[in-house]
């Protein structure tokens, strides 16, 4: 099971595939105590599990990306989404984003950047680096709901792709538990590329229009 996958699919032989979506576990990163309180509530009210940290360094520590082997034991739940402030002392949200996308273990986790400043070059920079979305502060409930839907939809598509492939292999009597499936002819709109890259290619399409 790849890190970041939300859905656990039970595949009974010849039976129907049913999905019960568990809660998203979100890691929220912000150096402002006020904003941490608000984002935590916004996420909880949107039925997410939330862990808040006050810096990029602590976020890396929590994920076990800071080189400390023991630290990854702190994490009891897989992280499905990272929401981070952009302007933080030390590691900025952008630095954190880069570190996550550079990591083979965590690059599939969607990262959303929050910022109080509506700077186009900043937004472009983050999207180019693979951010899923960019939220303007102050963050509203509608923003969080939208992000959640986006993430859940992406997870569902990825699960559908891998489950269709597994189902096909089951039928062919060749069970392959690898999740790196490729062919899905049933739904041509589902591309088997990570959501962040999809965002990136959409962005490139947009910028080529100018």
């Amino acid at each position, binding site marked *: 099971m790849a890190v970041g996958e939300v859905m656990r699919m039970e595949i009974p032989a010849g039976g129907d595939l049913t999905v019960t979506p568990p809660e998203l576990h979100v890691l929220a990163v912000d150096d*402002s105590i*006020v904003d941490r*309180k608000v984002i935590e*509530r916004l996420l909880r009210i949107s039925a997410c599990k939330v862990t808040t940290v006050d810096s990029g360094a602590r976020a890396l520590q929590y994920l076990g990306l800071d080189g400390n082997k023991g630290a990854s034991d702190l994490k009891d739940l897989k992280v499905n989404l990272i929401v981070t402030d952009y302007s933080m002392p030390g590691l900025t949200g952008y630095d954190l984003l880069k570190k996550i996308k550079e990591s083979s273990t965590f690059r599939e986790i969607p990262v959303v950047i929050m910022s109080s400043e509506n700077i186009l070059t900043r937004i472009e920079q983050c999207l180019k680096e693979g951010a899923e979305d960019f939220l303007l502060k102050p963050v*509203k409930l509608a923003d969080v709901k939208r992000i959640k839907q986006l993430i859940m939809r992406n997870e569902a598509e990825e699960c559908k792709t891998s489950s269709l492939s597994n189902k096909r292999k089951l039928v062919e009597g060749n069970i392959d538990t690898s999740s790196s499936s490729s062919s899905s002819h049933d739904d041509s709109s589902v591309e088997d590329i990570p959501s962040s890259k999809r965002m990136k290619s959409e962005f490139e399409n947009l910028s080529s229009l100018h």
Partner: protein
Amino acid sequence: MGLVKMQKSLQDYTKSLFLEGILDSQFLQLQQLQDESNPDFVSQVVTLFFQDSDRILNDLSLSLDQQVVDFKKVDPHVHQLKGSSSSIGAQRVKNACVVFRNFCEQQNIEACHRWLQQVKQEYYLVKNRLETLFKLEQQIVASGGMIVAFEPGF
């Protein structure tokens, strides 16, 4: 005073804060996040804001009183205060921070001193008004009433 009158007082008082521009719609967003499971959410966030802001304003005063002002230290404080005031809907504090920040960028010490005072004034104003608002709410709850969500209607 009867409950109905108290609730009307609270609505009118809240409305005045919006009309005077002391609070903006972000405050309403926070109120929407409050419910029976989290009945004190707004006052909790606002209390954090007060504690955080007291600290920041103190640091700002110290930084600006130095012989040689280090604007690299001043700016992040103003940025933080701007952010947190925006997050709770303290519009006038936020707006004052924006102007303050511009003068920081220009390294205009005199204007910075002036605008620190302006920011403090706006902060004490919103602090005073919100403390009154929470007192009104407490009176209602103490009398067995419930806090009705504020409907702007404008």
